[in-house]
């Protein structure tokens, strides 16, 4: 046996809500219909019913979204609504939660606009990184707009007033009607192939959303995106926003504003140049006076102010050295001279002439002495000789023998004493005139004092 399990109402409602949540189509729906039963709550929330001939759906727009509405919703008004469908658990009712609400006069255009905007945004065409810089000082400005009318006049007037230096080239285009978009694309291409255009203003004056529609066309948006020249868009009035504004490099609220964004103001420039000029003058003057001060400081520095003091010590030194040199030179000279004279004197003293003279004198003296001595010697010798001769004559034994003396020999020996006589031997007696050989008969010894 099975028991049927009953859901609570809350659980069922939660289940249904999850179904709504899960459905991707219900998360973002675009719905058009007629407003009825509109109630604007004091909190700012708007409660209403959206209906057509066959059916109706309750809807709510919360204050956060409602405050952006440019119109006041009223019953009977045909509107375009963007939002999501979900279940309000409190009443168990599904309802539309509106994000955006637009009057349905341009219903299809509005959807087209939103769809194209979404598409191009997803392609990245609106990204800030794609935006080209607007040159500060353009030399050639392209203007794409109708050749007549307030827009071109405002642009040209503003450019002339602010910056007459730049050349302006108008590339006329239709800016309204079905031919406008191709015409704008053609002008953009023409402008891009024209040499040296620095920046381009693309725009037109104000009008209804239908009037401005060309600037919401995809071909125009893509032509702007492909332009190599930076584009400033200026379509309609400040409140009008077109696809062209999103894709251009800079959006200006009006044509006049576009011209102001395109060029600098010559009066401001003039001021800036004047400012720069005075900046340069004051900076350089400051540098000059600073350098002048530095120069003065350096000039008044001690060594430069009194240059002679720099070299005075050297002069003093050189003088002293010169003096020393002279002095020591003189001393040296004197010394040398003194030396020389001493040596000369010593040399003179050593002169051999004197020695020679002395030696000569000595020699004479010696000669003299020699003479005297020799003479004396000879005299002495002479005298001695005659003495000796006399003595000799006196001593001659023969003479003595004359007087009767004889010499007795035995064995060739002179006999001086009877002691020496051998009685057996013969005696040889030498007389003055010959010899006697005698034999001994007797020997008588003589007594003393007897002769």
């Amino acid at each position, binding site marked *: 046996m099975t028991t049927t399990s009953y859901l609570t109402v809350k659980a069922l409602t939660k289940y249904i809500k999850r179904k709504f949540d899960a459905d991707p189509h219900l998360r973002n729906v675009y719905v058009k219909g007629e407003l009825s039963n509109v109630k604007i709550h004091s909190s700012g929330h708007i409660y209403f019913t959206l209906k057509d001939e066959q059916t109706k759906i309750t809807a709510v727009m919360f204050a956060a979204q409602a405050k952006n509405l440019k119109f006041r919703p009223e019953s009977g008004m045909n509107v375009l609504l963007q939002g999501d469908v979900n279940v309000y658990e409190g009443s168990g009712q599904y309802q539309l939660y509106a994000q955006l609400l637009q009057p349905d006069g341009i219903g299809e255009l509005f959807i087209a606009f939103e769809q194209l905007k979404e598409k191009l945004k997803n392609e990245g065409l609106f990204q800030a990184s794609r935006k080209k810089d607007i040159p500060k000082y353009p030399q050639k400005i392209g203007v794409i707009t109708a050749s007549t009318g307030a827009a071109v006049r405002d642009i040209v007037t503003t450019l002339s007033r602010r910056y007459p*230096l730049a050349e302006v*080239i*108008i590339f006329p285009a239709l800016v309204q009607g079905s031919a406008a978009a191709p015409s704008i694309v053609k002008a953009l291409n023409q402008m891009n192939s024209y040499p040296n255009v620095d920046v381009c203003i693309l725009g037109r004056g104000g009008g209804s959303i239908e009037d401005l529609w060309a600037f919401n066309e995809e071909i125009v948006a893509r032509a702007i995106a492909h332009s190599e020249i930076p584009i400033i868009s200026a379509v309609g009035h400040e409140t009008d926003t077109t696809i062209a504004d999103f894709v251009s490099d800079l959006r200006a609220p009006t044509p006049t504003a576009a011209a102001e964004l395109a060029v600098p103001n010559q009066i401001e420039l003039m001021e800036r140049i004047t400012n720069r000029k005075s900046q340069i*003058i004051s*900076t350089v003057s400051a540098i000059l006076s600073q350098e002048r001060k530095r120069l003065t400081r350096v000039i008044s520095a001690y060594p430069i102010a009194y240059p002679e003091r720099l070299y005075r010590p050297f002069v003093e030194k050189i003088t002293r050295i010169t003096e020393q040199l002279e002095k020591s030179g003189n001393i040296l000279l004197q010394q040398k001279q003194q030396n020389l004279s001493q040596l000369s004197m010593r040399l003179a003293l050593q002169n051999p002439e004197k020695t020679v003279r002395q030696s000569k004198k000595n020699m004479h003296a010696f000669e003299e002495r020699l003479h005297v001595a020799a003479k004396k010697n000879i005299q002495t010798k002479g005298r001695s000789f005659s003495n000796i001769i006399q003595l000799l004559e006196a001593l001659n034994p023969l003479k003595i023998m004359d007087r009767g003396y004889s010499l007795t020999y035995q064995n060739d020996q002179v006999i001086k004493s009877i002691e020496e006589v051998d009685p057996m031997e013969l005696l040889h007696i030498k007389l003055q005139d010959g010899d006697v050989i005698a034999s001994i008969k007797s020997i008588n010894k003589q007594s003393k004092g007897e002769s």
Partner: protein
Amino acid sequence: MAKTNVSFDQAIEQLEEIVRLLEQGDVPLEDAISLYQKGMGLSTICHDKLQHAEKQLISIMDDNGEKVPFQSTDKEDTTK
């Protein structure tokens, strides 16, 4: 005086650069003086270019793609 065939763009950029260099402060005197002379020349060029800018050259491309002088009209006509 510096050459006058520079564009306003170049002249004012150079002028700004000179001011920047001078205000950095550590510029030697000689350089400062030559920068000064150059800056004065450039400011005169810029000034003259602005002051004596002749009437702005405004032209329009005609249907044949030729450039012709543009005459502004006050008539409001946004269709052409």
